[in-house]
């Protein structure tokens, strides 16, 4: 340990982290009920005038809520909730589909605006962006961090019509938690040194990175609030959760988070998933949907010049149990045919493991590398080994669709299913 690090009193943020360098000024910019805002902006005369608005799912109650207006949230409705349940809680609510394309465009606009305001912008999701303003103190003269945050809020609103809330602090986790407290349309900054006190006030389930599995393990030990963790000897945490998780938890409970804001974080996966209007158990039908999803994923990969080594298929049964199966291949792939061969095997595995009835199916491609990274030629032909022929075929199909439209050239079974739609689109 260096002298500089020893000088930091234990228990304060930075005691366990690389403390060299200036105090960080991190902001999380979170778009207020993003999908609702976009839906309203797209149709100001219609949807724009509905206070009780739910975006996502269908009026007959399938799918899940992507976003709900603050007025509806008052009824206990939140995103991720099945639309049917939301409608039971708030029967007067109006359900509209997600305006996908508009959302991507608005998200891109917000990001562009932020990139003009901050040296480092890391998109965390379609409607959340981390900014690292460390080192910009002098640029803005006497402006405080809080004033900067307000200025960013106003500029984004003026340039994109999107209202955002900002949370700020010395760590990403602090910024994220503060943004939750800033909503709606506000700013909340946690001053350096106050992190530990600020975090103490939260429930453990509020901490970013605490998932349902970890949460139930925590609850088994009667740990619900951040302060509950602080009251337990570290030795016990290690015994209960293992050294890595115990240290992670203790650090977070003390407001420590070593992750940095990284601009232009490379895309980690490409995926497509869908919740069905009715539960499906027909194997052929599921395979056709899987094929359609593979076509979307494959096309996105090729458009971005990427190849994937890992294919994952995700399913959700009517009782909301989510299962995934994935396979990592020796060589990265991009062609629809090999993606589908792998995905189909994985679907078979999933259907063998759980119920054959599904409410959601999805496929994702990850372990991405750019298409120049591969190039190892195979000795043997094999369905799981992509050949030049497979790649060329997929690329040619892209060209045809580019010129004559997305439906111009499709596998026969997909054409059949679009001619006789059975479930149609649900949620991404």
């Amino acid at each position, binding site marked *: 340990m260096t002298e500089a690090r020893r000088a930091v009193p234990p228990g304060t943020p930075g005691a366990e982290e690389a403390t060299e360098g200036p105090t960080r000024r991190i902001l999380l910019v979170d778009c207020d009920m993003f999908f609702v805002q976009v839906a309203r902006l797209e149709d100001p005369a219609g949807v724009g005038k509905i206070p009780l608005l739910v975006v996502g799912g269908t009026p007959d109650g399938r799918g899940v809520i992507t976003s709900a207006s603050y007025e509806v949230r008052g009824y206990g409705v939140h995103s991720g909730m099945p639309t049917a349940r939301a409608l039971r809680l708030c029967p007067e609510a109006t359900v509209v589909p997600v305006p996908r394309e508009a959302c991507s465009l608005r998200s891109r606009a917000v990001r562009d605006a932020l990139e003009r305001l901050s040296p480092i912008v890391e998109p965390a999701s379609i409607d959340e962006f981390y900014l690292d303003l460390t080192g910009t103190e002098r640029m803005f003269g006497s402006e405080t961090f809080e004033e900067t945050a307000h200025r960013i809020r106003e500029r984004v609103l003026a340039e994109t019509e999107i209202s955002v809330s900002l949370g700020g602090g010395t760590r990403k986790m602090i910024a994220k938690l503060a943004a939750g407290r800033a909503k709606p349309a506000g700013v909340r900054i946690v001053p350096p040194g106050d992190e530990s006190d600020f975090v103490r006030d939260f429930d453990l389930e509020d901490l970013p990175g605490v998932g349902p599995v970890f949460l139930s393990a925590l609850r088994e030990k009667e740990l619900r609030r951040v302060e509950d963790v602080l009251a337990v000897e570290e030795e016990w945490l290690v015994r209960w959760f293992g050294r890595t998780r115990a240290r992670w938890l203790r650090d977070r409970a003390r407001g420590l988070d070593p992750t940095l804001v990284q601009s232009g974080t490379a895309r980690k996966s490409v995926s497509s998933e869908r919740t069905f209007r009715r539960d499906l158990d027909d194997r052929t039908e599921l395979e056709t949907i899987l094929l359609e999803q593979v076509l979307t994923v494959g096309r996105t990969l090729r458009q971005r010049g990427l190849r994937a080594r890992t294919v994952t298929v995700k399913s959700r049964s009517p009782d909301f149990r989510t299962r995934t199966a994935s396979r990592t291949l020796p060589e990265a792939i991009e062609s629809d045919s090999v993606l589908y061969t792998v995905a189909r095997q994985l679907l078979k595995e999933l259907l063998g493991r759980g119920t054959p009835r599904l409410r959601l199916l999805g496929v994702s491609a990850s372990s991405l590398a750019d298409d120049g990274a591969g*190039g*190892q*030629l*195979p000795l043997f032909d094999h369905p799981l080994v992509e050949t030049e022929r497979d790649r060329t075929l997929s690329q040619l199909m892209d060209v045809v669709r580019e010129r004559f439209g997305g439906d111009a050239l499709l596998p026969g079974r997909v054409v059949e299913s679009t001619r006789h739609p059975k479930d149609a689109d649900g949620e991404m």
Partner: protein
Amino acid sequence: MNFTITRQNLHKGLAAVSASIPTKTTLPVLSNILFEATSEGVRMSGTDLDVGVRIQVPADVSLEGSLTAPGKKLQEIARELPDEPVRITTQGDQIELRCGRSHFKLNGLPSEDFPTLPAVSFESGWQATGETLLSLIHHTSFAVSTEESRPILNGVLWELSDGQMRMVATNGHRLAKMTVPAASSSHTTVQFIVPPAALQQVQRLFGKEEEVVVGQEGNHLGFRSGGTEVYTRLIEGSYPNYDQVIPRDNDKWAVVDRKTLESAVRRMAVVASDQTHRIRMSLAKEQMQLNVLTPDLGEGHDEIEVQFEGDDLEIGFNAAYLLEILRYMDTEEVRLGFKAPERAATIEPVSGEGEESGIEYLCLVMPLRLLD
């Protein structure tokens, strides 16, 4: 059970068997070694359910019986015991060791809990010298696949036919094949796909000078020499047609000093991409150039002298594959054969005059596409 055994024999038996015990298992009895004391001595067995090892060691048995006891602990104890006879007895499910003034009691599990090793008949089996078997395993098993996506490639193909024995292994990108002359037998040609873990045990337990008998029973294979036996489950399925991918029309040949090539490739590998290990090999008269260009890192260049016949060629390779193959070539010089930049290259040893042994060793490596 009650027997007296020399410390050396106890240690020898435990060392042979305990390497087959899984380090992590959900079945506690698999962490144990099965002791079976009979009038002929003591048999010790260990298994991870895929591969099993059994060894018979001399002992003075005064009461026959059997029990399983913790393998690793017994091995550690045997290592530390003084050089005196060890008396081993059982009391219920406990095993007791006495040696000089040392005394241990370890908790065991009943022998009925221990999985039965496959009953392989060796009478109608094949014979191979340890030397042949070990050489085949050494020269091929490195090439097996470790990927889960194609289980069949996780094994070594072993072909036994009249007068010949051959092993082949591949991961779908590079392949190693060795054929050796074998005693003629009345058997028809057979093919087994053997997990490399079993072959490792064979390498570890059998000496060059030993005669090894191999027997098959259903989906299991057994190897036996002296009192030592190795059993394995075979991998099921049909092995890809390797013969079809061996190039017959390569028309560019380079003969090169193996060590010189190996060190040049190793130097280039330093600068090659961590992911692809891509290097570019350019061949022209009397010269091989090796080049690396890795974006964000830098580049490297090397030249070595070769005897080259054929048209000039530029071809890309995964340096790691080349290095691995060169490591298993035993001769001073190796011959590389090429056809085109997208076709399999061959690497084989160049034996001196009059060194014809009837052994054929050939490795294949598929190129990496070059980025221009």
